[in-house]
């Protein structure tokens, strides 16, 4: 079936759901089904809406349909020596471009290169009335009208069905190197914080189980100079790549809360906080990324306690794996202020007046 025909079918499904007032569960590759509130409603498959609609390496822009697999997209970019700099996680090979935008999650390079929204230039979206609209564009600079495309990033699909996305891509760095140190969590945080203010080609940092790792990316000269200056022990290239990929895709045992070796009442929390926040948890329970701004915490403490820690530090906590995510017990995402919630509700009505799309995945209210 052609993409136009598939799009038409999606529109018909939306119209039908609207008539029956039946919610829709937008499905991409299903790699992040666990993320956010529990999916409800009839499946609306966008996975078949796939393929690259345009790619101009010299424009640094690629436009892909929502169902395009991330692995496919990466393959095409690499042929032209380019990549998605924000390192989106691929929790499974089925991860799609649309799901990447809807979840808005970026990988280890986030602190130095920016997140998903910093690279989304435009989207085509079907709203709750089944109307296809385009926002943003295919150029890097664009301030014509409100940039609704950026609002789609991290929306968990509640505003509409993302059908096509234009992304900014970057040339692959010439060199990539990993260094490591055996040090404690507090000392690692201190180092990571200090490095941030220096003109070094640091692309990613992590601390886990007594080991601080750092990825340098850039020109040969810059990476060499930084390695000389920082004096960590250098990690073999394959091993380095493996570490960062496994970290990005949560393949380490630390992220598996259902592993038999782990206490049943533990959950994995994602704490996004200012990079300089204190450690706030026992170091054997944490994995630190993003120069200190991202902390994965495996704990059996209550949601309230974990959220209090995060809020006091000036950030927020998301229940990522495990725990009971039915809204009666604990919302996966931290609650919003009343003023912000009012705008959220109004925006939901503006895009999806009949509450069709992904009920409960972003907020309990809709």
């Amino acid at each position, binding site marked *: 079936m052609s993409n136009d025909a598939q799009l038409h079918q999606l529109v018909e499904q939306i119209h039908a759901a609207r008539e029956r007032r039946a919610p829709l569960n937008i499905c991409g590759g299903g790699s992040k089904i666990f993320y956010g509130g529990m999916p409800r409603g009839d499946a609306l498959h966008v996975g078949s809406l796939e393929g690259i609609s345009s790619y101009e390496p010299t424009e640094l822009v690629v436009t892909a349909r929502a169902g395009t697999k991330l692995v496919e997209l990466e393959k095409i970019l690499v042929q032209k020596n380019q990549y998605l700099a924000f390192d989106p996680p691929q929790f499974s090979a089925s991860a799609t471009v649309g799901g990447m935008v809807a979840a808005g999650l970026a990988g280890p390079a986030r602190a130095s290169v920016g997140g998903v929204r910093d690279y989304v230039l435009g989207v085509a979206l079907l709203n709750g009335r089944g109307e296809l609209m385009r926002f943003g564009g295919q150029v890097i600079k664009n301030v014509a009208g409100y940039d609704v495309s950026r609002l789609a990033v991290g929306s968990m699909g509640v505003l509409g069905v993302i059908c096509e996305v234009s992304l900014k891509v970057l040339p692959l760095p010439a060199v990539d190197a990993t260094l490591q140190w055996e040090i404690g969590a507090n000392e690692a945080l201190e180092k990571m914080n200090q490095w941030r203010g220096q003109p070094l080609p640091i692309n990613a940092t992590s601390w886990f189980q007594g080991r601080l790792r750092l990825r340098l990316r850039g020109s040969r000269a810059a990476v060499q100079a930084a390695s000389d200056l920082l004096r960590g022990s250098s990690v073999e290239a394959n091993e380095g790549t493996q570490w960062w990929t496994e970290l990005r895709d949560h393949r380490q045992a630390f992220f598996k809360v259902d592993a038999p070796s782990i206490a049943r009442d533990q959950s994995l929390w994602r704490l996004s906080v200012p990079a300089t926040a204190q450690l706030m948890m026992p170091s054997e329970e944490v994995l630190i990324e993003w120069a200190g701004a991202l902390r994965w915490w495996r704990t059996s403490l209550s949601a309230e306690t974990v959220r209090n820690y995060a809020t006091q530090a000036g950030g*927020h906590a998301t229940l990522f794996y495990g725990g009971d995510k039915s809204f009666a017990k604990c919302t996966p995402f931290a609650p919003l202020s009343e003023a912000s919630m009012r705008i959220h509700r109004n925006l939901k009505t503006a895009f999806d007046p009949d509450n069709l799309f992904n009920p409960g995945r972003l907020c309990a209210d809709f």
Partner: protein
Amino acid sequence: MPQTEAQVAAVLVACHELGVPVVARGAGTGLSGGATPHRFGVILSLARFNRVIRVDPLNCLAVVECGVRNLSISEAAAPFGLYYAPDPSSQIACTIGGNIAENSGGVHCLKYGLTLHNVLKLRGFTASGELIEFGSEALDSPGLDLLSIVVGSEGMLAVITEVTVKLIPKPPVARCLLASFADLEAAGNAVAAVIAAGIIPAGLELMDRRMTAAVESFVHAGYDLNAAAILLCESDGTCDEVEEEIGHMGAVLKSCGATRLSVSQDEAERLRFWSGRKNAFPASGRISPDYMCMDSTIPRKRMAEMLRAIEAMELKYDLRCANVFHAGDGNLHPLILFDANDPDQLRRCELFGAEILEASVHLGGTISGEHGVGLEKLNSMCVQFSPLERQQMIAVKRAFDPKEILNPGKVIPTLHRCAEYGKMTVHRGLLPFAELPRF
């Protein structure tokens, strides 16, 4: 002219109750009429919100009031070896609040991003006077990313009083390469070739001959007046890194037919190279009684085509046009030269401008790269967006501001206005089966 947040809130509460329009204003340097007063409204000047609240070097951020001038942030951060990256040419005058409203860029935004990419948190008030915060000092926030839509919303979604910006380390060295080209086509191709070679220059700007001639007599930057176009190509980083990159850039430019290449040998020379570019607007003011600055973006590869189209328009409207480009981003600033005392020239100038914007949309671009829509480009919004898309934007506006008191009448034209402009049918209406959605 409020001085405290409580006063801002009180003004908004009162205006909201009475249904009186409120137009926030920074330094008034906006180039699309965004801060133009409303006939029946109140101007909320935020000029007195001019304190740098704190610079936090360890967290690499600064918290400033909205009326602080763009350049003052970098000045406050300089003692820590940090700076605020977006650098609009108006940076000595424009405020960070205005930058947020327009998502302003600068000559370094290809490598370092626009305002959006360098802002962590906004604090301000909704149309009804309620305190609200968008974003945080962490790298993400729960819920929808409202901050990303408030940036670039031209004062129509909220009034911002306090801004937390990201600071980045100042690169130890920067050098600039100046390249001449015998024709515009070659210069345009050179821009694409630099990017294709895997280089992201810290700045990549293009000026045509009319522009270089105008600035040369104004600031004596040392530009090649025989060249049809010149490119300014900057590299920054560590000393070795810059050396390596300048070599690479020079080779690419030469292979694209550069007729002359010079590399800045010291900081004074680098600043001299840039002085011409940074003075492009005032220099145009000297060669013509008036000029109108356009601001559209096109895919880089269409640049030569666009320049030829502009040349044809010069003949059609019998007006001259000088061109400066943020070439790395494909963002054009054609400056149409005219005399506003002659009503017919003004009329021709406006038609000329509108045709440039239309051509930009047809080449796959957008009607505004960084100056915003404001009042000036309302009609052109009808060209770029379908009625449904504009309707959806109006719904977004109402989600933030149901009574539509914040800067009403800007950015999103009404259906009625577009109908009058006569573009209703051109956008998607000409397609067969226009009722079917399509890619």
